[in-house]
Structure formats: C-alpha cells, structure tokens
C-alpha cells in the first residue's frame, strides 16, 4: 500500500471538533460496512473499532498509552456516537471500563510471562495473532522495567501490516523506539518486516508478518525469526474467533505441538445462547461480523476444555470473565480511581456485557508460569500490583 502518509488524528480532530455546524450530519453516517463489504474488510474493521475504544479509554484517563492516538485514523463510521463538539471519539463508560479491564488483564498475563522467563536470559517470543493496531509492544519497550530479549511477532492481514509499517516509518514517536521495518524474505508471507529496538543493547525486536491466518503454516517456525526452542506466549485478542473452528484449532495445535515452552492467552466472547448473547450475535452479524468459534466454545468451561484438549495440563489452565477480572484483579483503590473518571451507572449492563467475555489461558514448560493472584476484595491498602 502506498498511502503517502497516515495523518495524525489529533490534528484533524482539532479542526473537526471546532465546527458545531454539522447539524444532523450524524444521520448520514451509517455503518460503512453494508452487506456489500467483504467479510475480511469487516473483520479488519473490528481492529479499528478496538483502536478507537483504546483511544477513548486513554483520553479519559483509564489507560496510559501515549501511542494510542497514532493508530486511529479519522473515519466517520468509526464513531458509534458522532461526537460533534467533543474533542475525542468517546465511548460510553461501560465500553471504556471493558477496554480498561481487558487491556489490564492481558498486561498482567504478559507481565507474568516476562517475569517468569526473564531469569533464563534467553530471548522470549510473544506472538500476537491479528495484532492489528495494538500498541502493546511500544508500551513494553518504553516501560520503566526495561525489558530485554523480547522478540515480538505480529501476524495480520497484509493490508493491516502495511498500515503498521507505514506508521512506524512516518511517525517519529514510533521510529524513535523501533527502527524502520526492514523486509526479510519469508516463503510463507513472501516478505516479513523486522524492526529492532533503537536501543540495541536490549535485544528487543518486532517482526511483522503479513499473513491471512487462514493460510497459517503447519509449523510456526516457518515464520521468519520464530524459533521453537524459545519460551513463547501466543496471544489471541478477539482474533481466532473470526476463523473457522478447525482453522483456529489447527493454529493452536501447530504451536502446542512444536513449541515445548508455551503460554497461550485467548480473549473472546462466550454465551451466545442467552438473551443477551443472542442479541450480540444478531447485532454483530448485522454488521457483517460472525464468530464461528462462538458456537463451538459457548461457555467458560468449553474454553478451558479447548486448551486442555490442545495439550495444556488441567492444573495449568485458567479462565476468568471480564467481570471476574474486574472484581478479582483490580485493586480496590484502582477501582475507585477508574470509577471516579466517569460515573458508571450501568451496573447490571456491565455484569451482562462483561460476563460475556472471557480470558482463558494456559501454560506448559518449566520456564513459564502464568498464575495470577487475585486481590482480596475489601482489603484496603493491599496494593501489591
């Protein structure tokens, strides 16, 4: 893709926000993904959806992520609530809390992975499926923990990877952290891209693989730079659910059968069969979004079984709904801080919505340990995290 530049939304939003004369322009902003849009485009659009949600949560103070704004491009259809006169693409509090909780949960699991594998002094690999516009690596590389030996791999549609390489090339705040992406030949993807951390002593890097996951190879080591002997965390943040169930399990199996030291974290919706779930399935399909694995792994138990069947031992598989994570993993004082940002009035709806998303994770191999202790509710001053 030869987009001359990806404009920074912030500068554009400044001018847009000032004009209040848009009147009912909102009524013309239907979802752009009509029935004519291809399913792939729609699925790629869910990444944009996530990027906007992330920016909303960041600008309202839920999350700290100086990179979120670079990955949101101004497109009217992104805004579920056209917000004329407002400077930010603001999501509702319930969505912001969801973005916060899901991001925090995965951050915690990644932190567990990194701290458990750090003593080896070896490279550790994180493979993010359908990573899209995820900013996580930029946050990891700028965190005060000064992580080392992280080999981060992102796999996504070529069109998405192309946008990301362009962004890294054009935005100084990004290419001051990662070097300009260099093409490396790779039979599977034709061409992948490698960026090194600009601080070479850290041995951190990002490899971007333009690959439609439906054509994932039978062994992950076919991907450039991915070495099966290193401890690896495989991450699917609402990604595998868009694939045919057999493809999704083949991808998981290709990792579990070739990588002895592996962690797996999957985040996706559950419970399609109750009243809320039926409406969710129907609303998403009206947007052209279908999740074939949802009817295969309907419950939290199904999701755990999925990991056990993929080769993780019973005692090394866990799952929590987003609602449970909010309750159990977020310390009381942090809950109060987050709740203080916007008054969340939608308690019942939160329980419904957050109860329909689960994070299921497992680990195997001696180097990886992904146990997460929960915060005891009501314990004041218990701020270990």
């Amino acid at each position, binding site marked *: 893709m030869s987009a001359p530049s990806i404009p920074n939304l912030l500068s554009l939003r400044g001018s847009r926000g000032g004009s209040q004369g848009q009147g009912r322009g909102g009524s013309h902003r239907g*979802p752009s993904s009509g029935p004519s849009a291809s399913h792939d485009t729609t699925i790629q659009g869910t990444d944009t959806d996530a990027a906007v949600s992330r920016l909303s949560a960041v600008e309202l103070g839920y999350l700290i992520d100086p990179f979120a704004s670079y990955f949101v491009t101004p497109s009217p259809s992104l805004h579920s*609530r056209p917000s004329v006169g407002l400077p930010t693409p603001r999501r509702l509090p319930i969505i912001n809390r969801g973005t916060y909780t899901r991001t925090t949960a995965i951050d915690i699991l990644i932190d567990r992975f990194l701290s458990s594998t750090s003593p080896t002094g070896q490279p550790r690999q994180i493979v993010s499926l359908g990573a899209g516009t995820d900013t996580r690596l930029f946050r990891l590389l700028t965190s005060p923990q000064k992580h080392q030996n992280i080999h981060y791999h992102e796999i996504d549609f070529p069109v998405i990877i192309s946008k990301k390489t362009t962004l890294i090339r054009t935005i100084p705040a990004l290419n001051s952290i990662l070097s300009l992406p260099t093409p490396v030949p790779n039979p599977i993807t034709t061409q992948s891209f490698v960026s090194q951390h600009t601080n070479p002593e850290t041995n951190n890097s990002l490899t971007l693989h333009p690959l439609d996951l439906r054509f994932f190879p039978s062994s992950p080591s076919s991907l450039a730079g991915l070495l099966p002997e290193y401890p690896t965390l495989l991450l699917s943040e609402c990604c595998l659910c868009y694939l045919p169930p057999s493809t999704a399990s083949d991808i998981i199996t290709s990792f579990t059968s070739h990588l002895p030291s592996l962690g797996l974290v999957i985040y996706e919706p559950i419970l399609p069969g109750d009243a*809320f779930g039926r409406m969710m399935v129907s609303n998403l399909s009206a*947007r052209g979004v279908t999740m074939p694995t949802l009817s295969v792994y309907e419950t939290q138990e199904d999701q755990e079984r999925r990991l056990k069947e993929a080769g993780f031992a019973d005692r090394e598989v866990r799952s929590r709904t987003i609602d449970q994570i909010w309750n159990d993993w977020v310390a009381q004082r942090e809950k109060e801080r987050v709740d*203080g940002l916007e008054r*969340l009035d*939608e308690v*019942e*709806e939160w329980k*419904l919505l957050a109860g329909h998303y689960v994070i299921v994770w497992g680990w195997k191999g001696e180097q990886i340990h992904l146990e997460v202790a929960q915060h005891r509710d009501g314990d004041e001053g218990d701020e270990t995290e």
Partner: protein
Amino acid sequence: MSDLDRAIAQLRACRPIPENEVRELCHKARELLIEEGNVVTVNAPVTICGDIHGQFHDLMELFRVGGDVPDTNYLFMGDFVDRGFYSLESFLLLLCLKVRYPDRMTLIRGNHESRQITTVYGFYDECLRKYGSANVWRYCCDVFDYLALGAIVLGASNTLSQPSGAGMAPAGEDVEIEVCNADQQIISRFLRKGDIGGSQTGGSQSGASGSPERGGGEGGSPNGAGQQPTTNGFSEGGSGPPAPTNTGPPGSGASGASGGSVGNPAGAVLCVHGGLSPLIDNVDKIRLLDRKQEVPHEGAMCDLLWSDPDEIDGWGLSPRGAGFLFGADIVKVFNHRNDLSLIARAHQLVMEGFKEMFDASIVTVWSAPNYCYRCGNVAALLELSEDDSGLGVLARSNGDVNRSDGGMGGQGPRGVLMENDLLGYNRAGPARRYRVFQAAPQDSRGMPAKKPVADYFL
C-alpha cells in the same frame, strides 16, 4: 389544532420541534411542575412505567401496548433520556403530553435527569447534534430540576379490572398477578392465597425457566392481536385457573405471601425511581426536601434516585458510587410504617421486564426493551386497577400528606408489634397486571441510515 397538538403530532413522528417551541414548552412545563409536591398523589387506575432511555420507537410500542394518552393514566418513573438515540424526542413528547393532559401524565425524576449524567451518557451530545447548540439541553435540564421525586398511588384495587382484549376471560377476584403479552394475551395468572399466609415465595429471583414473555411474544402477530387468550400456563379463566405451581413467573415474587383479605382496598403504592434512603424513614420526609436543584452527589434526594434493593440485611454500599443498597427488612419496616402495600421503582435493568422482591413488597419495572439495542431484554408496564368498591379513594392513612403516623416515638406498642410481625408481615397488595413487550420491530424505526449500532468489546 393548537400549537401544542401540532408539536405532539410532530414529535410522535420522531421529528424534533424548533428550539423556540422547546423553550416555550419547557417554560409551561415548569409552571405546571412547580405546583406539584415532591410526592405527587395519583389515583388508580394507573399504568406505571420504568426507564425509557431515549428509545423512542419502543416508547411508541409502550403506548400501543398500554393504551394511548389520555385514555390511559400514566406514571413514568424517570430516566427518559440518555443511552438511546432519541432522548430528545422521547422526553419532549412526554413533556408535551404532560402539559396537554396534566392529570393523565405523571413524570418523576430519574438519576439520568441530571446535568452531570446527561453530559456523559448521551443526551447532551444529542441536543448539540440536533440543534447545533446546548440551549435545548439547558431548557430540558431546567425542567428536570422541577420534576417530582416520587408519587403515591391511592385507590388501587385488590381485584384486576376487566382485560381490554376481546374474548378474554375476566380475572377472578382471587387473581393477584396477571402477566400479559403485547397482544393482550394472558401469559399467566397467579392467585392470591389469602389464607395460606406467607408460605410461598418461590421463583422470586432472576429469570428461572420458562420466561412467560417468550412464550407469548412469539405467539401472536402484531396485527392479529388478542384473537384468543392463550392457555399458556393457564386454563379457563374466571372459573378457577390452576393454582400456580412452585415457580412464579420470572420477576414475580409469586403470590403466596399476601395476607390480606380479598376485596379490601389495597394500601398505597409508593413510586420512586431508585429506592429508599437511610435519611428517609417516612414519606413525609420526602415532602420536606428542597428538590429544585441538580441531583446532589449524596443525601436523601440522591438516594431516592440512585438506591437499589438487594439481598442484604439493612443498608449497604452501592456499586454505583451513589445511593445505597437496602434489604428486605428495610422495605418491610418502611412499608409498614407508611401503610404502603408496595414500592414500585425502576432504575435497574431486569431481563424479564419486571421483578418483584421481598415477598412482593417492592417491584422493579423496566420499560426499555432490548436496552441500548444490545441487552436482549423484554420490557414491562405495571397496571393498577381502580378500586370500584368506593373504599379505595377514601384512603385511610395511606401515606398521604401529613397522615402517616411515622411509626416513631410514642408508638411503642405498635413498634413492638411491628418487630414481632416483621417476618410474616405483608400488606394486602394491589392486584397487578404486568404487560410485557418487546422492542419495536426494526422496520418501524423507519430510518435505515440510523440503524443502531451497539458497541461490544472487539
């Protein structure tokens, strides 16, 4: 056709009225509301509605199911705005109807009728988008400050009125709860069991099996309304429908615990958006509040709009960060002290549309089907019939102004009785007809370009 009628017609078509008309309407409404007490007295029959949240097309469906104004006497328990895409049209239509038919339309304040909350949850943005300025939002917020905080329904009957659907069997005197679908078909009836005091409270909590609304909702077409009563869970009305089995309808506290004798006028019903406050032990204390202000962050007025009943003893902290949680004991003491048979409130999403708790001493009514176009819930209305024995409106203490005994100091014997009586206490509740309805069909929204898009975590 008066200007007001023209505005009503325009709003019914879901078209906003011009800014100057909004200003005038809000001015008139304020003059009307300023005369109302903090607790409005409403005589049965009345149809009680919960949250609307800007779901205009579902509000139209509500009027279709519950009857039009002024034929039906309505009481809306707040939360007209925010979340849905048509807060403006919904609230202005209700306000127009209030001004046009002040005695047939009662509006009380919800926690979303607030400047602060509407800036977060959508009404402010919507006004800005539809008018290009915040003026209309300001006019509406000024009206919010004058809305009553609660209502007392007097003269509700222990017996249901005749159903309006054609060919329906009348409810016998012993029917305490009747659940109907949107096509006037009876889904279930529950008998008052006057002489089996306090035994059965089953099925009171969230959606057990066999949701009545589902059985009915799919049965009749919108156009073929009321052709025949369903026999769903109910046979041969009038001559003795079967006693309820061990489960009540979802949302129903079931009927068992009512101890009143059939035919007596029911006690009063207190309607409030959220619930009770530890600072309010009798209804008269609500009347003493200075309500004409933005909803405060704490205090009695805040609690009335924010609190929730919960399965706890006494009072608890609310997860909402405002108001409190209160348990069955609090409700029972409050109802007893104020001679109330029931508290009707809204504020909490209920998947089945309504939910009775604490031996039917409090009910949540929720009137926004498929809330936020996402939740998949049904909605409900609560109809209370007029007591035609002539006793009901000659209310006894009934919590009417200055007539509550307060149940406080100097009432020793009664207090003891109250304590002793507490576990088994239940005022004879009014007969209740719930009409359960679903979201308006998509095509009736008639605006494909604005087809609602619900957010998920993707």
